[in-house]
């Protein structure tokens, strides 16, 4: 299966580098298996972060996929496999099925999807998609893991339920049991609030106060922003006592305004402040430092959740391809969702896919803006099979079956 490298590696290091470069560029000798991966990503328009420290990121998911392809090809030179990425960007009003068909017609059968949930379903339910394997790298919607599962769809991005559970477990460890829930004006904020309520119930918390934040966001860069926010948040947060304010603001419109401005001196968590995430630029444990450095040097910014989810999907494909020595979709899929599959993901324990809803199970980071505060699952939350399944919808709770 594995060919001696001596055939292809030259005597000294300079020529090795050139050779490796050529390998990456594609034209390969006959017995190299080429595996094509397509990324369909929806352009989300310009997103200006509230903080000047945060960069504007335009290539969400794309850089992570590229990093994965690069890692795959370093391995591929030893296994005679090569991986290529084709990126298709779509506008929000563009017909999604056509974009999918276009890549499908090029012979691509492995896809990463950075799309809203309903568009993912439209792609996956396309009649020709049956012979493809698709990875959701961007949609956190619980329904995709609970009711709307598909045989050919896998999720490397965690669900809202997983993130809410991860945070709730940490807060249970802290015994910060009384929450003040603040919900933004978008449907996805309400969806995350629903996941938070479920998590509160599961881990013994109580939502003692709840308010909706309905202010229009306005311009993000202003000269005298703080005077207004100081006043508004102070008034808004005059409620009964609580342990922690939990905010659901996925669009990042106001959550950053809350810390240090609440009426009572209380911490803030949720989508901002203390957050549960799959990845963060602050993570450096379990070998993550080298991984982060590689990414930062190449792309000049920190890796995001979606980059990491894209990397996980690309690496999952390679892991299955090298273990099965095959690029056939059926073989890859059955290996990926089997109990044999596991992947190292800089999280201190192997990650793998749940066979009932094809969600990647993984530890989640509990972070502040600058450091990793903890990693969930927390000690003491036990499970019959793996404690990773204490995060999100477990087998008996999901209507999706193997």
């Amino acid at each position, binding site marked *: 299966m594995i060919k001696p*490298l001596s055939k292809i590696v030259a005597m000294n290091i300079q020529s090795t580098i050139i050779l490796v470069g050529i390998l990456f560029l594609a034209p390969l000798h006959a017995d190299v298996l080429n595996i094509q991966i397509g990324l369909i990503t929806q352009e989300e328009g310009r997103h200006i972060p509230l903080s000047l420290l945060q960069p504007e990121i335009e290539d969400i998911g794309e850089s992570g996929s590229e990093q994965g392809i690069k890692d795959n090809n*370093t391995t591929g030179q*030893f*296994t005679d496999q090569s991986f290529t990425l084709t990126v298709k960007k779509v506008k929000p009003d563009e017909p999604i099925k056509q974009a999918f068909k276009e890549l499908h017609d090029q012979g691509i059968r492995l896809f990463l999807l950075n799309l809203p949930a309903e568009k993912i379903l439209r792609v996956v339910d396309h009649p020709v998609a049956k012979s493809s394997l698709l990875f959701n790298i961007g949609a956190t919607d619980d329904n995709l893991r609970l009711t709307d599962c598909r045989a050919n769809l896998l999720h490397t991005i965690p669900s809202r339920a997983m993130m809410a559970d991860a945070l709730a477990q940490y807060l249970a460890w802290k015994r910060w049991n009384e929450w003040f829930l603040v919900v933004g004006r978008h449907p996805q904020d309400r969806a995350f609030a629903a996941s938070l309520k479920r998590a509160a119930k599961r881990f013994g918390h109580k939502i003692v106060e709840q308010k909706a934040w309905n202010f229009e966001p306005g311009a993000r860069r202003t000269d005298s922003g703080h005077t207004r926010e100081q006043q508004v948040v102070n008034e808004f947060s005059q409620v009964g006592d609580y342990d922690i304010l939990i905010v659901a603001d996925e669009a990042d419109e106001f959550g950053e305004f809350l810390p240090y401005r609440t009426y009572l001196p209380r911490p803030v968590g949720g989508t901002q402040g203390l957050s549960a995430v799959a990845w963060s630029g602050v993570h450096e444990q379990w070998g993550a430092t080298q991984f982060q450095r590689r990414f930062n040097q190449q792309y000049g910014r920190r890796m995001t959740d979606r980059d990491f989810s894209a990397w996980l999907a690309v690496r999952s494909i390679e892991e299955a391809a090298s273990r099965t020595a095959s690029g056939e979709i059926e073989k890859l899929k059955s290996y990926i969702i089997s109990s044999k599959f596991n992947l190292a993901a800089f999280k*201190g324990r192997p990650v793998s896919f749940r066979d009932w809803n094809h969600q990647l199970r993984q530890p989640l980071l509990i972070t502040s803006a600058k450091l990793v505060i903890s990693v969930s699952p927390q000690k003491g939350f036990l499970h019959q099979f793996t404690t990773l399944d204490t995060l999100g919808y477990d087998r008996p709770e999901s209507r999706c079956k193997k």
Partner: protein
Amino acid sequence: MVLNRSLKRNVDTLLHGMAVFVLLTLLSMPVTAYTIYVSSEKDNKISVIDGKSLKVLDEVSVGERPRGIALSKDGNTLYICTSDADHIEVLDLQTLKVSHTLPSGPDPELLVLGPQGKYLYAANEDDNMVTLVDIDKRSKVTEIQVGVEPEGMGISPDGKWLVNTSETTNMAHFINLQTMKIEDNVLVDQRPRVAQFSNDGKQVWVSSEIGGTVSVIDTQSRKILTKINFEIPGIHKELIQPVGIQISADGKQAFVALGPAARVAVIDTNTFEIKKYLLVGQRVWNLAFSPDEKFVFTTNGVSNDVSVIDVGRLKVKKSIRVGRLPWGIVVRP
């Protein structure tokens, strides 16, 4: 006179008692004198432990993030991968002073000494290279491109092979040290860490931290002879993460550190069966034998100590407090 006699008796008793005490001490302690060196990743220190009293004699400050350490052939020098300082530091063990540094390429994590003691081989996690360093000339000789995040380094006793593991590529690369070329690549389980040759050179054992297995590879054919799996009642499989490996000189017994499982597995090398799991400190990573192989010392990253395993009785005898995040360990005869 009376006083003198009673004094003499007292002195006799005292001397007798001391002799018994010394004898007992000699019986219970290892006879040969040796020193244990432990790198502490977080404290930027090398702890010096006396093999006889098992007490920490000294702590030496070195560069940022010391991890892999190796002893020179004559035992007078310690080579230290100071990962965040991006070089290798050379510690004179007589004076306990860093005399100079060696180039290593970025982020050196682990190193091994070549068979003649002339070269050092360092794994550079950041740029997928193994760097070959000439110790006397203090210069880089060459680099070898390997898989993603190279880590483990094992040299065959005959000096023919260097086996390097790459953590994200999941392979053991067999590098021919005469030609400096990779001759073969063996796919092992997820996140391979340590590569350790048996003393006769016939096998190389590779631990897979995330895969939870040890692959025993036949050096001649480069085929995996067996994969050793671990099972500990009450501990989830995901937390059994093999890293450090030591095989006894007679080739009969192997010790494998199991990371967060806080156990060292004792393996019969003929049957590959696990004879015993020994409870040690938390997140046990690397191991070293005493020169007489009567003891195995372990570095326990989370509990910040070194466990002392009595090889004859297969029992953990003692733990020694060292710096924070103890990582590498060597024993100087």
